[in-house]
């Protein structure tokens, strides 16, 4: 059976493989991403999930929210387990999409070795990194994906040091350097781009890497209703670039009209609200360099001062909000 090509969100089938009844927080970017990826990939898929928020909210015995065959064993081995599953399915003559869905910790940090091994061997699997920019499952600790300045429980706002001092690791460049057939970055706020990339990943064979930015309500100290808006601002401010590398050819899939100052993005999230002007400028400089790298355009640093600061959406009384 040849599946219909899914080009836009309108073509997206309605059948869910991550069904209702899971335990994700309202507004969870991971849940939104997984649900929609599953809709594109459809029935003939097997999913492996390492230790992360996703395992805890989707598969708690005796219930499971996945209608796909599901497997979990540990934290750092997504690349390896999916290699083994695929090998077995190939031997059984089954055309099945094997997908691993790991968090940023399970990808950027502890899972990097197995990811690199699988990419280097060009295993015929899809590896998805659900990037919520910290170890959320263990209570918001910093990861290699956490942006500069962000508060986490292991990059606290101290008297001497405030927030994370290192910039986000460029995992996409690392993965692309393995010369894999397909790599793409995704945003839950750009659904047509999102489904097109997942569809493309499905149609290609060999190692495919999808990297989704997934806002996390308690971890980012944000409003549940604002997850998609925050994801969109991440793209508009250059904190997240939408692009793909298809068989070595890099292509930007969306370009913001102008670069929105990062402050607009930061002020929707409690994890950044302690940031000094100096630190914001540092982050802005980093963004401008990335922008130049991706779009070959210089932007003045800082690109703009915020004329009229919008009211930050932080609710002080809520224990979830503000470190």
């Amino acid at each position: 059976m040849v599946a219909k090509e899914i080009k836009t969100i309108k073509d997206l089938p309605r059948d869910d493989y991550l069904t209702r009844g899971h335990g994700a927080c309202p507004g969870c970017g991971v849940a939104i991403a997984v649900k929609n990826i599953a809709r594109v990939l459809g029935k003939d898929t097997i999913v492996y999930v390492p230790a992360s928020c996703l395992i805890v909210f989707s598969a708690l015995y005796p219930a499971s929210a996945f209608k796909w065959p599901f497997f979990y064993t540990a934290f750092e081995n997504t690349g390896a387990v999916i290699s083994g599953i695929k090998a077995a399915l190939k031997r059984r003559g089954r055309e099945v999409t094997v997908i691993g869905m790991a968090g940023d910790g399970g990808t950027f940090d502890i899972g990097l070795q197995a990811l690199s091994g699988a990419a280097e061997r060009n295993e015929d699997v899809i590896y998805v990194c659900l990037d919520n920019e910290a170890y959320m499952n263990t209570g918001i600790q910093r990861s290699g994906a956490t942006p500069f300045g962000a508060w986490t429980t292991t990059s606290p706002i101290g008297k001497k040091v405030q927030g994370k001092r290192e910039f986000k690791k460029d995992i996409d460049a690392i993965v692309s350097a393995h010369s894999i057939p397909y790599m793409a970055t995704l945003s839950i706020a750009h659904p047509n781009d999102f489904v097109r990339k997942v569809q493309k990943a499905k149609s290609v064979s060999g190692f495919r890497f999808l990297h989704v930015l997934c806002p996390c309500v308690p971890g980012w100290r944000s409003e549940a209703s604002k997850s998609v808006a925050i994801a969109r601002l991440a793209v508009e401010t250059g904190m997240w670039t939408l692009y793909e590398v298809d068989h070595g050819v890099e292509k930007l899939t969306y370009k913001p009209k102008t670069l929105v100052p990062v402050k607009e993005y930061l002020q929707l999230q409690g994890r950044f609200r302690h940031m000094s002007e100096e630190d914001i400028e540092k982050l802005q400089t980093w963004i401008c360099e990335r922008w130049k790298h991706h779009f070959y355009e210089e932007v003045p640093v800082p690109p703009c001062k915020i004329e009229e600061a919008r009211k930050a959406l932080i609710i002080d009384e809520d224990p979830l909000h503000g470190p």
Partner: protein
Amino acid sequence: MKVISADHAVAHGARLARVEVVPAFPITPQTLIVELIAEFINDGELDADFLPVESEHSAMSAAIGACAGGARAFTATSSQGLALMHEMLYAAPQNRLPVVMVNVNRSLGAASGIWVEYNDSMPERESGWLQVYIEDNQEALDMVIQAYRVAEDREVMLPMMVCLDGFVLSHTVERVDFPDQHLVDSFLPKFKPLYLLDPDEPVTMNPITPPEYAMEMRFQLHRAVDGSKEVIEKVDREYGALTGRTYGGLVDTYQMEDAEIALITLGTVTSTARVVVDHLRSEGKKVGLIKLRFMRPFPSDELESIAENLKALGVFDRSVSFNGFGPVFTETRNALYHLGTPLTNHIAGLGGRDVTFKEVREMFTVIEEHAKGHRVKECHWHGLRGDS
């Protein structure tokens, strides 16, 4: 019949067992196994997928993934490699995935060496894997085939570790008889998974399990390891009927009918001890030998009936729990506690040191003294330079 090393015997065993997916990472003294399997595959002598993974952690992860996907999975490792797999070992038993792995025993950690010691595999007896210890190259080949029959038995469905002495076996050549492929095929049918990752019948394997359920699952695993005893004995008998070679199942005995004292051994030391027993017998001493084959399941009842009438019993260990005894001794004392048999522990061969005829004789001397009612130390280190 060929003259080959135990590592190569293992590779032939895996070939005859028609393993399907082999994720592997090299480590001395295991390398010869996976090198030969890779050759079999590239020469078209074995229809399997070789996954040259980037670590042992990934080798075990991929083997577990392959088994969950319905393939017969094989891997081999040693020492540091087994330690790196430690985390992953626990996934196979509780998910009832019958992966078979050969561990070529080698010492672990500082005072590093590549020579035989059991302190790599012994700690893993808490993982839920079945564990067999091998005496010679023929047994190495035969046990890989038997291991799949046991592991994949519907009453068992557990992973199995075949342990063999680094260098003493792995790199030493002996005559090995190959069973016919069609004989092996009749003995070992194609792997039929109990649970399987299949989109036509989706199952959730290994969800997070809260305290309300986890304990019962552990209990089921506990019973499965216990229950594997019968299957191990049965499979060994069946294999014997086909090939003429049996190994005694969980334990094998030598000169035990009228023995008054005996020594428990495992691995290659058993061969040395057999010669010592012959010598002592020729001197008129009523000595015997108990070859312990399995550490998991531990043959407590079997040892009890064998040891019932002994005046004293010694236990050989090639690993040690510091400030305690060797693990084989600890388990044996547990099993025989109510018999009250005088027991001594004999630690030797650590870090790959040779265990000689003289030292095994020394062990029997201590056991004999003990049998006479003389006071002896409970734990002896044999072959130490300087004082012991």
